[in-house]
C-alpha cells in the first residue's frame, strides 16, 4: 500500500531567483504505516485530544513526528507569500520568516542588530544558511515547514529535522552546560524536567546566526531557554525565550504549537544534491 503525500515547497524563502527557479512543490512517497498503540476515535483516526503518552520513567513522552510550529490562537498562518519573496506578506504572525511580526512593537533589537537585519533583508536573505544547504538555527527550525521527529530516551532527547540534515541532541542525563564550548550551529543543549515540562537551556551558538528568514541575528553569547510541554496526544507546546544582551535590549519570549503527524515518517531530503540554485541567488 502506498500513500501519495505532498509537502509544500520549502525553498521559497531563499533569494528571489531561487524562488523563481525552484518547482512549487516537492512530491514524495513513502509507505503508509499505521502505528500500533495510538489512541483512535471510532472512525479510526488518531485521537489528537487523547491524554499525553508517558515514557517508562513516568515523564511525558515527547516522541513523534511533528508539524511546523504555529502561533497559538491564530487560525490562518500562511508559510507562503502569494506574491513571492519581497511582496506584501499576508497579515498575522509569521514566526519562520519574521519573528518581529509576533509582537506589536517588534523585537527589542540593539541598533547594530536592527541595521544588520535591514541589510540582510535588503539582500533578499541570500546569505541565509538555508539557501546554501547549511544548518538552520534551532529557533527557526521550530517553525520550519518540513517536519521533525523527536526521539526520547531517559538520558537524551534527539530532534531529527527533515530540513538540511538537522540533528539536535538535548542531554537530559544531568550534565551541566559546558563552560566556553566550541561554537556550533545547534549550540549545546541540556534539559531537565520541571513537572511535566521539559526545560532546555542552550548556549554555544556560532556567531551572527539567523533565527528567522529575514535575518534576525543571534550572537555567540546568546542563550536560548525552551519549555516543551505535550499538552495532549496531538499537541506540543514550545515556549522559547531568547536572551542575548548583545543583540537585544532585553530577553523576549514567544510560544509555538506543533501538531502531531501520525502514521508517517520523515523522508530523505538531501539539500546539496544537484543544487543549482546558488549561482542564481541575487541581492545587493
Amino acid at each position, binding site marked *: 500500500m*502506498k500513500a501519495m503525500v505532498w509537502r509544500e515547497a520549502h525553498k521559497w524563502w531563499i533569494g528571489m531567483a531561487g524562488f523563481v527557479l525552484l518547482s512549487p512543490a516537492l512530491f514524495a512517497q513513502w509507505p503508509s504505516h499505521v502505528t500500533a498503540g495510538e489512541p483512535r476515535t471510532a472512525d479510526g483516526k488518531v485521537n489528537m485530544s487523547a491524554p499525553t503518552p508517558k515514557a517508562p520513567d513516568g515523564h511525558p513522552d515527547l516522541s513523534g513526528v511533528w508539524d511546523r510550529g504555529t502561533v497559538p490562537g491564530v487560525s490562518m498562518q500562511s508559510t507562503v507569500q502569494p506574491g513571492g519573496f519581497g511582496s506584501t506578506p499576508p497579515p498575522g504572525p509569521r514566526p519562520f520568516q519574521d519573528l518581529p511580526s509576533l509582537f506589536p512593537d517588534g523585537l527589542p533589537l540593539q541598533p547594530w542588530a536592527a541595521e544588520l537585519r535591514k541589510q540582510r533583508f535588503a539582500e533578499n536573505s541570500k546569505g541565509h544558511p538555508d539557501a546554501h544547504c547549511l544548518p538552520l538555527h534551532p529557533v527557526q527550525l521550530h517553525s520550519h515547514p518540513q517536519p521533525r521527529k523527536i526521539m526520547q530516551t531517559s538520558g537524551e532527547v534527539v530532534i531529527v529535522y527533515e530540513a538540511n*540534515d538537522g540533528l539536535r541532541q538535548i542531554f537530559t542525563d544531568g550534565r551541566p552546560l559546558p563552560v566556553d564550548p*566550541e561554537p556550533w550551529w545547534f549550540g549545546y543543549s541540556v534539559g531537565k524536567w520541571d513537572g511535566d515540562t521539559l526545560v532546555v537551556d542552550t548556549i554555544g551558538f556560532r556567531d551572527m546566526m539567523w533565527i528567522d528568514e529575514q535575518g534576525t541575528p543571534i550572537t555567540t553569547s546568546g542563550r536560548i531557554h525552551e519549555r516543551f510541554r505535550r499538552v495532549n496526544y496531538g499537541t506540543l507546546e514550545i515556549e522559547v525565550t531568547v536572551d542575548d544582551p548583545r543583540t537585544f535590549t532585553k530577553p523576549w519570549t514567544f510560544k509555538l504549537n506543533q501538531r502531531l503527524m501520525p502514521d508517517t515518517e520523515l523522508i530523505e531530503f*538531501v539539500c546539496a544534491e544537484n543544487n543549482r540554485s546558488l549561482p542564481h541567488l541575487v541581492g545587493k
Partner: protein
Amino acid sequence: MRIVSIGLATGLTTAILAFAPAGLFAQWPDYKAAGVPRTADGKIDMKGPTPRAANGKPDLSGVWQYMRPPGTPPPAPPPPAAQNGAAGGGEIIPAAFRTSQFWNLGASFKDGLPFQPWAAELHRQRVANNSQDNPDAHCLPIGVMQLHTHGQPRKMIQTPNEVLITYEANSGLRQIFTDGRPLPKDAEPWWYGYSVGHWEGDTLVVESTNFRDMGWLDVEGSPLTESGKIIERFRRPDFGHLEIEVTIDDPKAYTKPWTVTVYQRILPDTELIEFVCGENERDDRHLK
C-alpha cells in the same frame, strides 16, 4: 577539555586526500558517563557485561568507532605527498592502504568480490577515476556500508521501536524500525534505503532495501544497485565491542551473496561533534 583528532582524510578521494589537512581538531566538553562499568583505575571496562535495555534486549546505544578486524595488520601510513599537502606523482595511495574495509571490501576475499562483468567494469572505472564521484567527496550521503567502516564515529540510540544511527560524517542519519512493520514494496529509493529490524536472541537482524541505484559500498566504488538487499546482524558481545555481520545480496551486481564482518569499539565519555561537510567547501573543483 580534551582534544580529539579525526582521521578525516581517510574518507575522501585521492584528490581530496592530497589537499585536505592531515587532521581536523575539535574540542568538546569532557563528560564522564554514569552507569558505565569501570576498572579499578577508573577506565572503562571494555570487557564488562553487555548492557541491557529496559525490555531485556541488548542495548546497542553508544558512540562507536570503527576498528580493524582482529588479526588484520594496520594499514600503511598516508604517503608523504599527501602529508605535505601536495599531489605527488606516481601512486598517491599505496596499495597497502587500499586494503582497508573502508577502501576496498574485496581485499579480504581471495578472488575479490564476485562482480558481474558490468559491475567489475564499473568498479575498474571508478578506481581509475580516483573515486572522484564517491558521494563522500561531494558532501552527499555516504551509504550504509561506507558508514559502517568510516573513520568518523557514529552514535546509536535504541528505543523499543526504533534504532537510530547518527553519523558524524556528512550528517548521516539512519532509521531502523523495530516496531514490527514489514519492508515496503517498491518505495521511493533512498540513499540509506528503508530498514526494518527484529531481534533473534541477542542479535539485531536488520534488512534493508529500496536503495538508490549505483551506490558505492566502499571508496573503490563496489556498486550496489536499487535491487540490492543488505542484511545486517548486530551483536554487542560485551560492553566495549560491536560486531556487525553484513551480507550483500544483489544479484544484479554480484554472482552470489557475500558477507563481511565489521568491528567497532565504544568511544566512552564523549559525543559526536558537528561536522558540516558543505561549509566553505572548496575541494570539489580540484577533484580529478
